[in-house]
């Protein structure tokens, strides 16, 4: 029983991490209908910038509490990512806005490769260990262990989702976003400055990417130049599972994917009598994805037209 609870907690935290990144994917998709493959790389840049600042702070010997150092790192990473997000949209996506979808998709992958290589040149190819700055006091819960950082990550993912929902549905900017999402031309005619709205979307998404990057690095204790790749892939899967373009869907999809992976890895071996091992965990995750997409092509919470965040 305690093992089962532990697996659920593992899955929930992993899911929250996917959700943190998936929210960024889904926001851009909601507005532009573009899969921003470079998002995972923005997460990586956020982590690396924060790490550099943190390393300097730690090396300088200033006695600050761990969370403050982490926050300073994050504060430095956010503007960098915001500028980067703005620049990516301006340079790589805007000129192609009216081009066929495929063109924009290829550019997105190009940007992703470019960022990975730039990061490799700046920070090198090795793994960097990320100092343990955030409290990780373990707590016992029904025989399983959960620590402060894990609780914080789950709460943070929920808070960010709630904040974005509020932004999109209750504010003036959000209304402009929804209008742009429905039909950019008409929104433009109605006086919405769609270029600004799209830029702001990218800037917000990139700031969230910085948050995600710092949290993920702190959780695993590492950062490296290609950490965005797998993360982006999994987060994208989570977003599709929940219904891409839907913010609550990103959260749901993330948590679902995390729990399936965790339970899958934990129990496949026992359930199949050792015939399938824990390396089949991804197979089960993608099997669920295929099933969901067959039955509900737009994802669990996806609604095609009415509400793309």
């Amino acid at each position, binding site marked *: 029983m305690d*093992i089962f609870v*532990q*697996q659920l907690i*593992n*899955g929930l935290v*992993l899911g929250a991490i996917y959700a943190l990144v998936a929210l960024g994917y889904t926001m851009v998709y909601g507005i532009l209908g573009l899969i921003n*493959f470079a998002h995972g790389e923005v997460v990586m840049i956020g982590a690396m910038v924060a790490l550099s600042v943190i390393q300097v702070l730690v090396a300088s010997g200033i006695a600050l509490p761990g969370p403050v150092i982490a926050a300073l790192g994050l504060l430095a990473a956010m503007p960098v990512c915001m500028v980067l997000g703005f620049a990516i949209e301006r340079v790589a996506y805007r000129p192609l806005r009216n081009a066929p979808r495929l063109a924009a*998709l290829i550019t997105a*992958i190009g940007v992703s*490769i470019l960022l990975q*290589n730039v990061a*490799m040149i700046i920070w090198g*190819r*090795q*793994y960097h*260990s990320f100092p*343990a700055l955030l409290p*990780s006091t*373990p707590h016992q819960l029904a025989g399983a*262990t959960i*620590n402060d950082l894990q609780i914080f990550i789950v709460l943070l993912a929920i808070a960010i989702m709630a904040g974005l929902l509020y932004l999109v549905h209750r504010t003036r900017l959000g209304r402009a976003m929804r209008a742009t999402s429905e039909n950019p031309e008409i929104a433009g005619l109605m006086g919405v400055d769609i270029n600004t709205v799209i830029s702001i979307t990218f800037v917000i998404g990139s700031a969230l990417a910085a948050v995600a990057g710092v949290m993920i690095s702190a959780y*695993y*204790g*590492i950062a*490296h130049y*290609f*950490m965005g*790749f*797998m993360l982006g*892939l999994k987060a*994208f*899967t989570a977003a*599709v599972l929940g219904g891409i373009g839907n913010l609550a869907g990103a959260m749901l999809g993330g948590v679902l994917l995390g729990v399936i*992976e*965790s*339970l*899958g*890895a*934990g*129990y496949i*071996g*026992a359930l199949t009598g*050792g015939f399938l*091992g*824990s*390396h089949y*965990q991804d197979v089960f995750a993608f099997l669920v994805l295929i099933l969901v997409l067959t039955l509900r092509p737009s994802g669990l919470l996806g609604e095609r037209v009415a509400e793309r965040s």
Partner: protein
Amino acid sequence: MHRRPAFGVVLGLTLAFLLSACGKEAPPPPAPKAEAPKPPPEVVVKIGSVAPLTGPQSHLGKDNENGTRLAIEEVNAKGLMIGGAKVRFELLSEDDQADPKTGTIVAQKLVDAKVAGVIGHLNSGTTIPASKIYHDAGIVQISPSATNPKYTEQGYQGAFRVMANDVQQGKTLGDYAVSKMGAKRIAIIDDRTAYGQGLADEFEKAAKAGGATLVGREYTNDKATDFRAILTSIKGKKPDLVFYGGMDAQAGLMVAQMKTLAVKARFLAGDGAQSPEFIKLAGPAADGVVASSPGLPLDKMPGGKGFTDKFTAKFGPIQIYAPFAYDATLTLIEAMTKANSTDPGKYLPELARTSRQGVTGPIAFDAKGDLKNGPITLYVVKEGKWNPLETVGGDAAAPAAAPAPEKPAAKPAAAPAPAAEKK
């Protein structure tokens, strides 16, 4: 997401080309004597080096490449005459991303570039499929680090390696786990690569033969970062030892996560985890971890101290296999010198007859191309450093081979202060 992997390949290819371009540019600086003061023209001989230069093992790949580079630079600086012409070696470095598919693509690329020999690949999973391509093209290959026995069991004349294989290593680890660490309930994790899986299987055999019970067998992959699910499932089976067949990037994180999940078991791994990188990633959880590595401890290697100094001055700390890559390269070049030819067909017999003193120990090959009497050393992490525990084999091991009269590689006189290993 269905599109991404395909583009990953494209990315890999692009990168491989970019990197190879870099590789070509790099060697010239150490050859300032290209002023051609004498009429005998320079002959450029290409030597390939293949290792993962991107991805989670890129630090190890770079380590191998630099070992080969150092050897080539030294030989070029000295100047070498082969077949009456002055020879300048050129390093062609390729990135196989630790991926078997990419491994065969870059192998073909080296064949097309008409390399005289190949130092590589790093992983068994890439070395084995690539070896067929080199064999078909008649090119000689020495792997500094592929330890899976299958590599030399294919009957390819030109396939060599300069370290003990996994049959020996897995057995050493299994024996050690049972007899010295007192393990009775063992859980095994591997990364499903030719290396990780092969080593884990050999370890399992030896540990079971020693009387230990296997309580869990779990799997991950060589790019994973989250092992909490499989570790939790292992925790439920209450092992007293966890063995991991795989590389340092995963092992480091795994050990750290074992600690947060309060899994109370010792951790044991093979050569892939025995790097400074592992300790960096595992942090305080690294203490007490035991891992093996073919070869002698660096400071006990016959030329270990000198090599460490030269290498670290130029490229920074040694990860694992740089000295082996260095030895493999010099062994290849020595065979060319002796045969007075850079044609693989001509120098291959010389290579098979090799008997020389490398920085990693005496180098001689058996009929299959395996290193004769390769020693294996066990290390434990103490206070953030790998400390040698004991060395197995070297001259006593390898029952199949003839009782070789070679001296043990550790020359007590030549082993100075143990402060050689930096970091």
